[in-house]
C-alpha cells in the first residue's frame, strides 16, 4: 500500500497518521506538500490529516480545499483511488466538493476533546473490513467544527445509499442523544462518497493504535486498508 499524507500549513496530525500507516503496512508514507501539483507515482491512498489548516480562517478547510494538490486528489478519487480525511481532513473533503454537506460549529459552541464511542455502520468497504457492522469502537475526538449538516435530500440520499460510515454512540452502542458530541444530523461521525472510495470522519482512529494512549480500536481502519490492497494485489 503506497500512501501519501498531504501536509497543509497548519496540519498537525500528519505524523500520527504516518505512524498508524507505517505500523499497519510496514511502509513509511510519502509526505506531500499542499502546493505540489502531483501525487507520488503509484499512490494508492491519500490521507488528509487533522489540524488547523490556514488557522481555520474563512471556514475550516476552505482554503486548503482549494490548494494545488487538491486537483490531483480529486483526479485520484475520480479514478477510484482511496482518500481518507480525518477531522480537518474531513472538513477539507467537504469544502473541496469530494463529499457532500458541511461541518458547522459544534452545537454547544465548545471545542470537544475526549474519547468517544462510535458504531460501525458498514464493514464491507476498503476502510472498515476489519470491523463488523454494529461494532462499538472507542476513538478520540478533538474538534470545534464537527457538526455535520446537509440538506434533507442529501441526508436521505446518504442514508438510502448506506453511505454513513460511523455514528456517535455511547459505550453500550446506543446511538445519539447525549452521546452525540456536536449536534451532527443523524449522529453522523463519518461518511463515504458514492463510490465508497472516499471516507471523511471527524474522530481520530490514528490516535488509538497504541495501548499506551488508551486503546487500539483505531487499528482496524488501517488494517482494513492494508488488507484491501493485499487482496487487490493478489
Amino acid at each position: 500500500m503506497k500512501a501519501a499524507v498531504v501536509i497543509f500549513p497548519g496540519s498537525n496530525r500528519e505524523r500520527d497518521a504516518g505512524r498508524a500507516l507505517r505500523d499497519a503496512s510496514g511502509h513509511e508514507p510519502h509526505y506531500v506538500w499542499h502546493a505540489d501539483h502531483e501525487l507520488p507515482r503509484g499512490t494508492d491512498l491519500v490521507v488528509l490529516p487533522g489540524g488547523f489548516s490556514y488557522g481555520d480562517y474563512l471556514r475550516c478547510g476552505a482554503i486548503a480545499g482549494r490548494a494545488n494538490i487538491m486537483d490531483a486528489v480529486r483526479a485520484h478519487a475520480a479514478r477510484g483511488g482511496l482518500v481518507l480525511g480525518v477531522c480537518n481532513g474531513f472538513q477539507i473533503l467537504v469544502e473541496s466538493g469530494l463529499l457532500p454537506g458541511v461541518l458547522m460549529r459544534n452545537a454547544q459552541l465548545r471545542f470537544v476533546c475526549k474519547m468517544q464511542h462510535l458504531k460501525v455502520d458498514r464493514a464491507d468497504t476498503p476502510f472498515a473490513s476489519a470491523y463488523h457492522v454494529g461494532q462499538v469502537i472507542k476513538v478520540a475526538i478533538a474538534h470545534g467544527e464537527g457538526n455535520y449538516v446537509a440538506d434533507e435530500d442529501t441526508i436521505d440520499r446518504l442514508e438510502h445509499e448506506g453511505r454513513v460510515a460511523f455514528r456517535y454512540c455511547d459505550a453500550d452502542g446506543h446511538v445519539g442523544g447525549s452521546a452525540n458530541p456536536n449536534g451532527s444530523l443523524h449522529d453522523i461521525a463519518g461518511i463515504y462518497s458514492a463510490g465508497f472510495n472516499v471516507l471523511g470522519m471527524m474522530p481520530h482512529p490514528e490516535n488509538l493504535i497504541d495501548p499506551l494512549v488508551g486503546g487500539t480500536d483505531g487499528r482496524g481502519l488501517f488494517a482494513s486498508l492494508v488488507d484491501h490492497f493485499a487482496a487487490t494485489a493478489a
Partner: protein
Amino acid sequence: MKARVTVTLKTGVLDPQGKAIEGALKSLGIEGVESVRQGKVFDIELAGADRARAEDALKAACEKLLANTVIENFRVEIGG
C-alpha cells in the same frame, strides 16, 4: 474601485453563534431583539473601473471561495 461582499447563512440553517449572541444581547437588556444571524463582510479593493467585470469577478470569488453555497448566500455591492 471598492466593493463589499456580504456572506450570510441561508434561511433554515442553524446558527449556534447567532443564537449565543442573541442570548447575550437579551441578557444585556437590549430591548426588542427577536433573533440574530451572524455573517461575514469582506471589503475588497479592485483594480480597473469596469463595474460589470468587477461584478463577474466578485461573483466568481464568492462561488469559488468566499461563500460555501451549501449553507451560505452572498451579496455583492460595488461602490465608487
